[in-house]
């Protein structure tokens, strides 16, 4: 019976030691638990006088309880009590006093020191915060039971039973490592909570819900998350108020990623005793926050890109208009003066100078041909009629030369940017060209109207439909509309006519 009890107790402490070593390699908890386990196993095997050495495991147990949960003795008082416990054990072994007395007094001292440790741990438990109570509670409860049993079984008032031989007591002591293992298991489950957090945060959280998720995962409702703002080099909360590290009873943990600050978690100091949990939470939070920041960054870049693309388009449009005007008012006019002068020369030549007349006529025709090409070039750079008449006049010209009767409705906003005007013109021009080429339509309806903040340009025919929106002309139009912040839709059921509709931004 005694052996079985010793083996069970030793095995439970050895198991505790193994778990502690694996989970907290830097902590002394594993070492202390291992020492207890070994000593408990050795005790029944040793002969009489040496047994008392092995009985020192009770002292090591006092040390272990005092050192929980971190493995270090937190206060000078705690260190003193543990030192006294070891001194007591040495005194018991040196046997300066009569054996029986030593055993009884020494055991009583040991039990009292154990009670003192328990009392100090209980004081600490009362001061400490919720998260750290959670890790202390089971072990302290188990230790309290142990001390209670020790006091009850003290040989000073129960002389028949030798205290340390009490098998029942040993089995009861199994509660200590078991409580420790239970706590470890729970913190594992809590890390599972962090895993849930990672999943939760993956769904692009609002800054406020990130704080809520972290507070829940870390069991600290007072937790505050500060987001790093690179521009102002400070942390702000979800509402943009600055978050600082200070405050009594508060601790700040920095969350960095790739050497860059990401966030600041301001929380209960007790969380520091669960470095694994907070580390996991920080990693999860860093991922979420960095993801959030990258998304915001990307959005800002996209907006920037769209803005600069708009500027490029505006500049290109202005440049094209300028080029068309320069060509028209400059080169084309000057060039025309050449065939004009040549025609005067032609009429001034004496009737018998046939060869000179032929050369002059040739020169005149060549300069007129150049002028023709220049005109086509200028028209391609920018539709000249847009310069002369604006969108309405330009579209009206397209409708009068159209091969199909057109009904035209134009209601333009008071101001229309140059690039939107040109885009709208090309939509009508391309759509009408398609009607002529493919539609076999009997009439066309064109509407150019403002709807809210959009200019709607619509060309609808009653032709055979089946137009390919991916054809180069329509695709080019869609790209052009998109570049200008608009959309182009083509509806063309076979046999049901074709409707080309562009919606372009206008103020």
């Amino acid at each position, binding site marked *: 019976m005694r052996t079985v009890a010793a083996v069970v107790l030793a095995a439970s402490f050895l198991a505790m030691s193994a778990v502690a070593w694996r989970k907290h390699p830097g902590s002394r908890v594993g070492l202390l638990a291992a020492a207890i386990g070994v000593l408990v196993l050795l005790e029944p095997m040793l002969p009489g006088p040496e047994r008392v050495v092995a009985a020192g495991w009770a002292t090591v147990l006092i040390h272990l309880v005092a050192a929980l949960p971190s493995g270090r003795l937190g206060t000078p008082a705690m260190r003193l009590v543990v030192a006294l416990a070891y001194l007591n054990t040495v005194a018991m072994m040196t046997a300066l006093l009569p054996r029986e007395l030593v055993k009884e007094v020494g055991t009583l001292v040991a039990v009292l020191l154990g009670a003192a440790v328990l009392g100090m741990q209980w004081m600490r438990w009362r001061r400490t915060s919720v998260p750290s109570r959670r890790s202390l509670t089971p072990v302290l409860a188990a230790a309290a039971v142990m001390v209670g049993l020790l006091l009850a079984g003290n040989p000073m008032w129960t002389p028949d039973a030798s205290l340390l031989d009490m098998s029942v007591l040993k089995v009861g002591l199994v509660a200590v490592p078991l409580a420790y293992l239970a706590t470890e298991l729970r913190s594992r489950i809590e890390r599972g909570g962090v895993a849930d957090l990672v999943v939760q945060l993956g769904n692009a959280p609002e800054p406020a819900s990130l704080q809520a998720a972290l507070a829940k995962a870390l069991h600290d409702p007072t937790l505050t998350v500060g987001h790093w703002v690179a521009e102002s080099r400070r942390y702000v909360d979800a509402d943009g108020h600055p978050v600082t590290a200070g405050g009594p009873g508060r601790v700040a943990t920095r969350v960095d990623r790739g050497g860059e600050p990401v966030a600041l978690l301001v929380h209960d100091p007790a969380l520091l005793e669960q470095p694994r949990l907070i580390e996991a939470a920080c990693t999860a939070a860093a991922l979420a926050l960095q993801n959030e920041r990258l998304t915001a960054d990307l959005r800002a870049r996209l907006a920037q890109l769209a803005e600069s693309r708009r500027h490029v388009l505006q500049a290109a449009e202005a440049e094209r208009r300028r080029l068309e005007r320069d060509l028209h008012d400059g080169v084309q006019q000057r060039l025309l003066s050449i065939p004009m002068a040549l*025609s005067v020369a032609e009429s001034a030549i004496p009737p018998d100078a046939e060869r000179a007349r032929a050369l002059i006529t040739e020169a005149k025709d060549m300069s007129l041909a150049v002028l023709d090409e220049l005109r086509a070039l200028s028209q391609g750079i920018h539709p000249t009629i847009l310069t*002369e008449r604006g969108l309405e006049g330009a579209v009206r010209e397209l409708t*009068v030369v*159209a091969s199909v009767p057109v009904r035209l409705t134009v209601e333009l906003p008071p101001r229309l940017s140059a690039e939107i005007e040109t885009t709208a013109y090309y939509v009508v021009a391309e759509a009408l060209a398609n009607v002529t080429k493919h539609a076999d339509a009997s009439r066309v309806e064109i509407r150019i109207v403002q709807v809210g903040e959009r200019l709607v340009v619509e060309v609808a025919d009653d032709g055979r439909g089946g137009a390919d929106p991916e054809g180069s002309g329509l695709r080019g139009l869609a790209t052009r509309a998109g570049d200008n912040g608009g959309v182009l839709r083509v509806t063309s059921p076979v046999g049901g006519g074709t409707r080309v509709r562009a919606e372009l931004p206008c103020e």
Partner: protein
Amino acid sequence: MRVVLAEDNVLLREGLVRLLAEAGVTVLSGVEDAAALLADVGRHRPDVAIVDIRLPPTRTDEGLRAAREIRRRHPGVGVLVLSQYVRVSYTVELLDGGANGVGYLLKDRVTNIAEFTEAVRRVGSGGSAFDPIVINQLVQRRAGEDDPLHALSERERTVLALMAEGRTNQAIADRLDIAERTVEKHGTSIFTKLDLTASPDDHRRVLAVLRFLNA
């Protein structure tokens, strides 16, 4: 023939003055913007005002608007509009007050002095002169089923197009290498098909042209 000229490019303006003088046309004044043109037309009452479309200050369509203004204010003054581009819609606008004494030509046409001065004289004496490019665009567009132009034969359409340019029967006959009487016969047939038989000949001709241009 007395003309007032509005052209903002000095080189072209001087060139035109010289060219017209060469052809025996009197240029009363050459101005560079629409305001000066309206003032000089009011003062000189020329036979023809020759107007460039893009004039200062905006160089968009000031010349065209001035041309319409002259036709409204001075029905006796012919207006000949010149431009680097010719537009059907501008032609329709110019014909708003009828086809008398109005013309619209591509600027390049001035380099054919004989044809150009002929056009100036025609506009100056109440006729018309429209650019073949405009007329071609109108001919090429397909007439609808209910369009009376649909009833015309190919030859008749050609003759009507030349009429629309403002050419006389003789000029059309020369161009098509046919007898003037044949042109007249085509003309009568066109007027009948367009249901214009009741009007006196000159007027019918104008109406036919209008019908054609406004189709």
